[in-house]
């Protein structure tokens, strides 16, 4: 699964975010399709520190979505 959809989350509507969270958390690897090698190569151009920072931003975005979903169900 690549991070591209996650990086544009703030532009998506709530129902799309819900769908995306399902995508991120429920799809099996077989459902995720082939690996995007170009994205990996792009990632490898970053330093290890930059990759951790990128992973942290993705985790933060996911946490924001989880909180938003939790609040919407409350």
């Amino acid at each position, binding site marked *: *699964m*690549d*991070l591209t959809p*996650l990086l544009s989350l703030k532009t998506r509507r709530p129902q799309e975010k819900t769908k995306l969270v399902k995508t*991120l958390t429920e799809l*099996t*690897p077989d459902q*995720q399709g082939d*690996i*995007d*090698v170009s*994205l*990996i*190569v792009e*990632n*490898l*151009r*970053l*330093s*290890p*520190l930059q*990759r*951790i*920072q*990128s*992973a*942290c931003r*993705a*985790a*933060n975005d*996911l*946490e924001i979505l989880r909180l938003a979903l939790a609040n919407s169900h409350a």
Partner: protein
Amino acid sequence: MPDFVQLLCRLVDGKVDFVLVGGLAAATHGCTLVTQDIDLCVNLALPNLERLQRALADLHPVHRLTPRKIPFHHEATVLAELKNIYLQTDWGQLDCLGDVKGLGDYRRVLTQSQTFDLNGRPCRILTLQALITAKQAMNRPRDIETIRQLTVILELKKSAKTRKVIHPKTKS
């Protein structure tokens, strides 16, 4: 909110003996999958666990899998009994494991690690091959995609063409 870099820096600065493993290690090697916590293989010797406790002290660490979120603040007698430690801190989730399936305990994991530059600090991480071995041993559904990506990364790193684009700061 998670702050992986600051949390790892805190541990390195606190002289905690650890090796980065798991999903964040995979991401650090170039994997594009999302992870929400930091998995570490730690030296379970008491002095090291005391350093871990001191390093996290002001980040309100709690054992996140306990119903009452017991604070991670223990006497030496209790610390010495801990094996795997699953924490929630102000800067994110931190899983401290005494061993890694497929690899062994901290001492064995250490021999299969390398360092990378973490904001000017040497931080230890599982080698790419060791990480693949560990993920294969775990063999959970969510590990399959990680193994696929790590295998691609390993092949990319082996190729002369790709060596030119891989950042050179990771040292054995």
